[in-house]
């Protein structure tokens, strides 16, 4: 185990996979000479050269399509988006090319590609730079999605994503890159589809993913001061989804809060709530409550941004609500 930042863990995963497989290459804006817009690819140009670490023009649709085309003939591109916000320009290639290629070709052409970069809001970046893009990627079938919250998960999940034979989106977070944590040494791969119970408690389940895991943990500590022990289940992988882990937690606590960074309408939480009511209805002692971003574009003003984002206070209130406790 070594302590490192989330950013360094992502870098370690890419290097681990590029060392073992020449077909893996990294392409994106500022990934090479600039060492990465968020320095995730620091040192990789020097280590692998410009054949495998490639600065793209600011052409999200174009370089995403190029990476998909390269993957169609067997390369394993890591396609970096400076942020997933910009990948909205590239969604035609994600949804129409990458996600559907295997099916349209009757299994002839897999697309082993990784889309990665930060998703969601940082601080005061305003409406166009502050949106959680998870739903765009998993609404239709064909793309897998993981959302590492810790340095160890970042290394293990990114490595698994690169090895997977399908398109996998790895959604990170600007505010996570400096998070430090213990990361296993050597080759480390976390299978997709395995949630992680980040905190054990049997009074209420806070189910969440991505950087909201840290908000959930903070809320759980607050609740503990009142003697309420919350489960914090980090899905880690949205598709495939660890349904067993969700049901296990619900069965134990009978009360659920879903916390996510994105908007509520057709959000990830909407899917989880649907799943729980379909498969664990009898385990519930209260309706599931979702804590999400306010249903508005992200405002710039600091005070407005703060209340638009899901936060600890909202999670604590939601947990008390599903426990029928006064706010």
């Amino acid at each position, binding site marked *: 185990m070594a302590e490192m930042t989330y950013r360094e863990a992502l870098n370690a995963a890419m290097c681990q996979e590029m060392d073992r497989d020449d077909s893996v290459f990294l392409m994106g804006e500022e990934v090479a000479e600039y060492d990465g817009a968020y320095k995730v690819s620091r040192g990789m140009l020097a280590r692998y050269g410009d054949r495998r670490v490639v600065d793209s023009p600011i052409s999200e649709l174009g370089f995403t399509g190029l990476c998909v085309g*390269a993957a169609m003939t067997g390369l394993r591109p890591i396609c970096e988006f400076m942020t997933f916000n910009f990948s909205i320009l590239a969604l035609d290639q994600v949804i129409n*090319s990458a996600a559907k290629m295997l099916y349209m070709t009757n299994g002839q052409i897999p697309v082993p590609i990784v889309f990665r970069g930060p998703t969601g809001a940082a601080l005061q970046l305003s409406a166009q730079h502050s949106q959680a893009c998870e739903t765009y990627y998993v609404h239709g079938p064909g793309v897998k999605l993981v959302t590492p919250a810790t340095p160890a998960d970042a290394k293990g999940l990114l490595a698994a994503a690169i090895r997977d034979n*399908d398109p996998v989106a790895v959604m990170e977070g600007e505010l996570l890159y400096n998070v430090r944590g213990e990361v296993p040494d050597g080759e480390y791969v976390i299978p997709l589809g395995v949630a992680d119970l980040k905190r054990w408690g049997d009074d209420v389940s806070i189910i969440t993913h991505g950087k909201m895991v840290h908000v959930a943990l903070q809320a759980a500590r607050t609740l503990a001061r009142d003697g309420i022990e919350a489960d914090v289940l980090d899905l880690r992988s949205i*598709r495939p*989804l660890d349904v067993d882990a969700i049901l296990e937690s619900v069965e134990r606590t009978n009360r659920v809060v879903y916390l996510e960074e994105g908007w509520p309408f057709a959000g990830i939480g909407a899917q989880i709530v649907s799943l729980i009511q379909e498969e664990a209805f009898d385990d519930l002692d209260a309706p599931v409550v979702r804590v999400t971003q306010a249903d508005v574009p992200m405002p710039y003003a600091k005070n407005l941004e703060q209340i638009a984002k899901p936060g600890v206070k909202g999670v604590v209130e939601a947990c008390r609500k599903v426990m029928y406790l006064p706010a």
Partner: protein
Amino acid sequence: MATITGIGTADDETEAAAAGLEGFSGDELQALLAEMLLYRRFEEKAEEAYAIGKIGGFCHLHIGQEGLAAGAIKPLREDDQVVTAYREHTQAIAKGITPRAVMAELYGRTDGCSGGRGGSMHLFDTAVGFLGGHGIVGGQIPLGAGVAWAIRYRGGDQICMCFMGDAAVNQGAFLEALNMSAIWRLPVIYVVENNGYGMGTAFSRVSATEMEARSGAFGIPAHTVNGQDVLETYRFFEDLAGHVRSGAGPQFVNAVTYRFRGHSMSDPVSGTYRSKEEVESHVEEQDPITILRNRMMKAGLLTQAELEAMDADARAASEDAADFADASPLPDPSTLYDHVYAEINPHGRLFLDGRSPHG
């Protein structure tokens, strides 16, 4: 000279036309003519099958543009890659997919080249280097750049030929792909099948500059070729493919052609956007099959009997493809969930509809 129904009428040949045959053996000329006849009869068969409901959805015929399919693709090697749009039945045949496998795909059957999952717009066969069949205008262009990127990455000497219709050059994807192809000198030939209309909109009405000017901003050489002259087209692409194979970098070709049918099967041949007279004059004067046939006859390289025999073969092959398609089984309903993912992960649920066999 007898008239062959549907191939146009013979007109007065000139010595110059006969001279256009140079560089091709009699066998090569016959092979090209036979190919184009096959494409024509195949598409006519598809048209017929569509009319009686054997083929559904969108169906875009290539009738009138056969010279370009044969002339651009036949000079390629088997390991060269073709990426294209959705008017691609004859291109697929040209690259080596059998008429049976193409027709079965149009019929949505198991033996189709995409197992019945793709249909008319999504024909694929990796074994012969035919990588689709893409349905979003311009969406295939960055993919073509990526296929060329992979060739360069591996140090191969294959090339990628990426087709598009004229309307696709107004998409951002085109501009982005051309720029990247130029900065990385990718081994790709972009071929615009310029039939003058994006669906029902004339290119000139929606384009600020001429087709030939479209690649200049990226320093990519632009060429124009007459796609109705299969021999000119063949010679041109044979030469250009060689240049690209030896490192000339990306190329842009404005291949001038004309579509004798509507945009798709749900669209009339002529109408508000182009006149009946315009279409008729092209059918009479610019039919790639008639042009080659007349030259060969003039040069004494084709008899009426030979032509009729070739046409009979083309009809028989198309008939055979349709019979084969009709007899091919429908996809097994139990395969509905196959090939959504290449890898079913052992943990977690990939399908959330509650009825997948993968739980």
